[in-house]
């Protein structure tokens, strides 16, 4: 089933960490296996924020293995070395969990080379790399993950999130949402639905050099959009073409440094409720999530089939 949610404040910054936590916690019944947040902070014009993992957190159905934590230290040192080799500089480093890290780094804008070097280290995956995006995902409900990663006081303008009910792949971090739009700064995607042309489309994208880190069909949307961004296609146009290029039933949210977008397939088989005002846009799989932020009476509606919408922060 899965639950997705997103919000964007127009022209102001608030505690979106707490807001997204409230929304995702109220969608827990749609997906109790893992929770993910893509939060867009107030922005750092000089440095990049890098979130990565060097190991997995695993539950049922996953082919990944729980490893001895001692290997994480050596991998982390190798990542540090690769960052330096790529010509970047580590400004700050923080260990959030035994396997997840948050770094502030200084580098030029060739993120692909940097990303490739970092991910050349065994079991290492970049969760996000951007000037405002911070992507966090792990096993557990919204409160568990928010507490674990200290998201309760995260200020920013917008964010998207996901509660996952594992169906087509196992319970682990690599299959959890959101997915980063590798290797582009500040692009993230969450999805509710099933893509039926996943393998065919994945093979096409792999042939042109795009990277996949999981077997989760939702990752395809992030990679697909990243391909379009590489071709310098506008986000909204890319989302529109996705409705024809992706088969299946789906509703997805995408966020960039200053935008939030939603797309719904032609069958409209996956839910999405939208509240829109002059200063705030909130979307969720169920209205109950929107009510966790706005308990007073408001007007909401379901966007129709084949709808693509993009909002500016």
């Amino acid at each position, binding site marked *: 089933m899965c639950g997705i949610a997103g919000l964007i404040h127009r022209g102001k910054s608030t505690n979106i960490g707490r807001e997204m936590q409230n929304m995702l916690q109220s969608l827990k019944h749609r997906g109790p296996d893992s929770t993910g947040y893509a939060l867009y902070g107030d922005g750092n014009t000089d440095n990049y924020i890098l979130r990565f993992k060097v190991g997995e957190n695993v539950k049922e159905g996953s082919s990944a293995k729980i490893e001895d934590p001692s290997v994480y230290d050596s991998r982390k040192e190798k990542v540090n070395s690769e960052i330096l080799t790529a010509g970047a500089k580590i400004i700050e480093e923080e260990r959030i969990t035994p396997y997840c890290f948050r770094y502030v780094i200084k580098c030029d804008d060739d993120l692909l080379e940097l990303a490739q070097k970092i991910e050349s280290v065994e079991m290492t995956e970049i969760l996000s790399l951007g000037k405002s995006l911070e992507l966090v995902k792990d096993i557990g409900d919204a409160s568990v993950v928010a507490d674990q990663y200290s998201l309760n006081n995260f200020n920013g303008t917008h964010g998207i999130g996901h509660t996952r009910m594992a169906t087509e792949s196992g319970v682990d971090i690599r299959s959890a949402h959101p997915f980063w739009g590798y290797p582009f700064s500040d692009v993230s995607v969450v999805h509710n639905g099933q893509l039926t042309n996943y393998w065919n489309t994945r093979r096409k994208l792999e042939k042109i050099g795009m990277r996949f880190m999981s077997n989760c069909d939702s990752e395809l949307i992030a990679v697909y959009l990243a391909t379009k961004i590489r071709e310098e296609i506008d986000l909204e146009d890319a989302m529109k073409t996705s409705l024809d290029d992706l088969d299946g039933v789906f509703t997805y949210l995408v966020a960039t440094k200053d935008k939030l977008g939603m797309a719904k397939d*032609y069958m409209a088989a996956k839910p999405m409720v939208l509240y829109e005002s002059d200063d705030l846009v909130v979307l969720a799989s169920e209205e109950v999530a929107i009510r966790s932020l706005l308990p007073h009476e408001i007007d909401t509606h*379901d966007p129709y089939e084949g709808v693509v919408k993009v909002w500016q922060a």
Partner: protein
Amino acid sequence: MASVKDHKSHEMGLHDETLTGRTQQVFFNSEESANFFYDDSYEVDINKRAEIDVEKLLCLEVNKKIKDLMKQGYGTIVLKNPGAKHSLGVGILNKLNLIVEGSLGYFGIGSIDGPVVRISGRVGWSCAENMMAGKVVIEKNAGSCFGAAIRGGDLICKGSVGARSGIDMKGGTIIIGGNAGAFTGFMMQRGRIIILGDVGPNLGDSLYDGTIFVGGKITSLGADAVQAEMTDLDVGWLKRKLKVAEIEKKVDFSKMTKIVSGKKLWNYDNLEPSERKGAI
């Protein structure tokens, strides 16, 4: 009527079995009268009123409270602070005046038989699914699968609704004051849908029977849905029905579009004569 061999599927060797056909209509038999009454039906007084604050209650607790209040003879129940919670007000098989002050989540007011329900906010997916009788009025918008598989009653949304409204409906009337999404009336088998606004693609797809009236634009018709001529009888019925629905929108009923089944998709040829008469 087209012969069996006229269908392409039959030329391909599909669906060539002889069907006996079987009506879904249940005829009343006084010897089976016990089957037509519910165990949990109560004598209630519409003037006896109670309120339930839903905010801190689970849906199961709310539905149980409604039942308990009906047992005590309360005929008017107000749900306060519903907070878009799911499955509120389901399974009411009784005369009741239920007022919802706010919005409902998914599967609200499902499987009801008899109550009059007024909702001041919005409803989520599958509102009033399997409704048998009664009247439900929603002041704002509704999600997808609005009135899925209803058998009877009047289901009214003054705003717009999502996709697949009236899917699999087998009777009753759905009235939509605004627009409707894709696949409205999908596999509808009986009853009527009235949409005063525009409607999305594949209207009446695989429509078996029933009638859909549209006041605005139709994006596209689904398989086997065809346009039929509006009659004076239709106009008269629409006028009366809209009045009952409390929708104060000026409508030129004669200019509405009427959609019915083309009856080319299903095995109408194989129905028994009496059923064929009913179907046609």
